[in-house]
């Protein structure tokens, strides 16, 4: 039989112990997380008892996990990437609920990825120990250094045509966030330093001043960014004197720095294929100039009467323009090609257009004959 005096002393002893010893700090551990493609492993590095929590649970950047006697917080703004070590550091806090024993405690937790997976928010199971051992869940973002790319743009199937001479052209860029649970922030834009024949700028459509912007999970930012392409005089020279016999193709490059919230910044290279093409009326001017030059040649070598030159020019000019139009149609719309004396000519380039005109100019009187045959109007016959 238990003596009343003994129970009384045990009871007083417990009261004394609770009064004289400070409340014990808490212990926390986090379970590793398995995700498709890999794993994220947590380890608690250290803990420190606090007088009061330095964060507020209602703050947007604070996550909360709860058990019957404790509350666990994670300050997402305190997540850091350890560049020397390649892991992530989290700060978590735990406190007992009112009427539960224990002291608020700060925990430093590190996390490291294995495999390759997208950054994502996951429910992490934790164990908290004070007077009791309890289990709960808290939502935390996890990251992977070997992650697949999570921001992409659809590459251009056809090069964008930029007319020369022209002031500038804006080409919209479509960006897609492949993450389903986290937004992606575009933090900065770096322009390519190789801008010998143009000035380009990847920029916000509505402002020259860059400001960070977000793309929501699994969303598309269509035309928020535009490539502004401003060719300079060298681009025009390149159109006049192409280096290759193929239609001149250039690439414009810029880089986007982007990141998930609290993650490691990554870089996306955006490559825009560009073809500088002469402004169409300029092609006809080239044809006209070529025709004029070509029509002078027979006159200068004495094969053509000077008095008939102007009429011959008019006829060859007309035919030159028709030939240029037909050639443009064949090459541009029907994916065909134009050859003169076995040489392939691109009617969308200035020198070939000039050559077409020059050929017609040389043919001048025969063009005139041709026009006369098809036009019954009173056209005088040349000598």
């Amino acid at each position, binding site marked *: 039989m238990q003596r009343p005096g003994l129970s009384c002393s045990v009871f007083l002893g417990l009261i004394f112990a609770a009064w004289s010893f400070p409340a014990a700090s808490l212990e926390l551990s986090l379970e590793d997380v398995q995700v498709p493609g890999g794993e994220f492993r947590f380890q608690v590095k250290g803990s420190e008892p606090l007088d009061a929590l330095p964060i507020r649970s209602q703050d947007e950047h604070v996550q909360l996990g709860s058990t019957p006697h404790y509350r666990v917080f994670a300050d997402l703004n305190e997540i850091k990437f350890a560049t020397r070590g390649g892991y992530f550091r989290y700060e978590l806090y735990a406190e007992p609920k009112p009427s539960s024993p224990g002291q608020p405690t700060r925990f430093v937790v590190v996390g490291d990825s294995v495999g390759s997976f997208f950054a994502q928010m996951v429910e992490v199971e934790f164990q908290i120990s004070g007077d009791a051992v309890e289990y709960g869940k808290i939502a935390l973002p996890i990251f992977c250094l070997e*992650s697949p790319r999570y921001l992409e743009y659809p590459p251009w199937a056809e090069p964008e045509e930029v007319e020369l001479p022209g002031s500038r052209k804006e080409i919209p860029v479509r960006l897609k966030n492949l993450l389903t649970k986290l937004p992606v922030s575009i933090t900065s834009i770096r322009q390519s330093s190789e801008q010998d024949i143009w000035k380009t700028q990847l920029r916000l459509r509505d402002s020259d001043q860059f400001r960070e912007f977000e793309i929501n999970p699994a969303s598309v930012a269509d035309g928020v960014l535009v490539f502004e392409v401003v060719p300079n005089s060298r681009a025009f020279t390149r159109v006049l004197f192409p280096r290759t016999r193929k239609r001149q193709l250039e690439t414009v490059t810029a880089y986007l720095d982007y990141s998930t919230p609290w993650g490691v910044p990554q870089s996306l290279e955006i490559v825009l294929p560009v073809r500088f093409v002469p402004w169409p009326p300029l092609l006809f*001017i080239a044809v006209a100039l070529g025709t*004029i030059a070509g029509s002078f040649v027979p006159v200068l070598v004495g094969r053509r009467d000077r008095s008939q030159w102007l009429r011959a020019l008019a006829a060859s000019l007309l035919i030159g323009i028709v030939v240029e139009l037909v050639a443009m149609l064949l090459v541009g719309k029907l994916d065909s090609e134009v050859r003169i004396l076995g040489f392939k000519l691109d009617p969308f380039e200035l020198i070939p257009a000039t050559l077409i005109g020059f050929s017609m100019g040389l043919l001048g009187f025969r063009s005139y004959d041709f026009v006369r045959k098809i036009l019954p109007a009173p056209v005088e016959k040349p000598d």
Partner: protein
Amino acid sequence: MSETGVMRRAARLLAACLLLVQPLPVSAKGPGISPIALATLGSGELLVLDSRRGLFVIDPRSGQVRALVSGFGAFGAADMAVSPSSQGDTILVSMGVPQPQGMLARVVRYNRAGKSTGEWGWFGLGSEPVQPGGLAIDAQRSVAYVVNSRRPSVYRFDLNRPGTRPAEFATIRGAKNLGPLVLDAKRSRLLVGDPFLGTVHAVDLASRKSQLLFRGLGEPYAFLIDTAGDRLFIADASGERVLVVGLTDKASAVTTFAKLSKFSDPHALAFGADGNLWVGDEDEETLLLVSPKGVLLRTISLD
């Protein structure tokens, strides 16, 4: 239209497209300098590495700051090593940028004018991941070492042969995520830390074998060797303190050198004048000068 009219119009069009185009504006950055590595230059000035913003030179007397290298493009820097010499300091910076499924890593050498004078790089894929970390220079042998945080291994490269790929030098047994690295020239070994596991390992330069030296160190994020005193200073980032341990005796105990209320995230260490110690705090964006007795002498704010 007359012939001359056509010619005039064409000439006008040609002249219009020959006009020069004005340069386009470039966006700028804003926040303060977060020191993740520190070094003392031959001039006595401090060199500070910020992972994103670049390299900065600081006059320790006036606290004046000037940029030496403005950013590393898409790369995030991990560490820096400096070898002072009469011909000019050699500055190495390790850096990496995540790529799809992997990481592009490189070490860049700069001169005192901030100009790049050499580069060593490599790419790590998922099965062989790379994250460059701590750096150490062995000026006598003209080589440098860089850790791969993701393997965990130490790579070596020849300072006289820029453009070559660093070669794997040693694997650290029992380590997970390597961080800081320092050359202990007296004992012909490298000391490498694992901030994830809180351990320090030694790698013998001749045998390339590793050995666990210390454990339970919190998050050792930066090393500094006091060659005169044969001591190793360790910045414990999560413990918010600087530790010190003797290097001559294997049984040396690790003790706390300084734990100051102003420490929030100590990431960088360098010696100042009179045996004082500079501590770079990444979180607070400050440099703190600590006396040999562990007392705070002054601070330089970098925000």
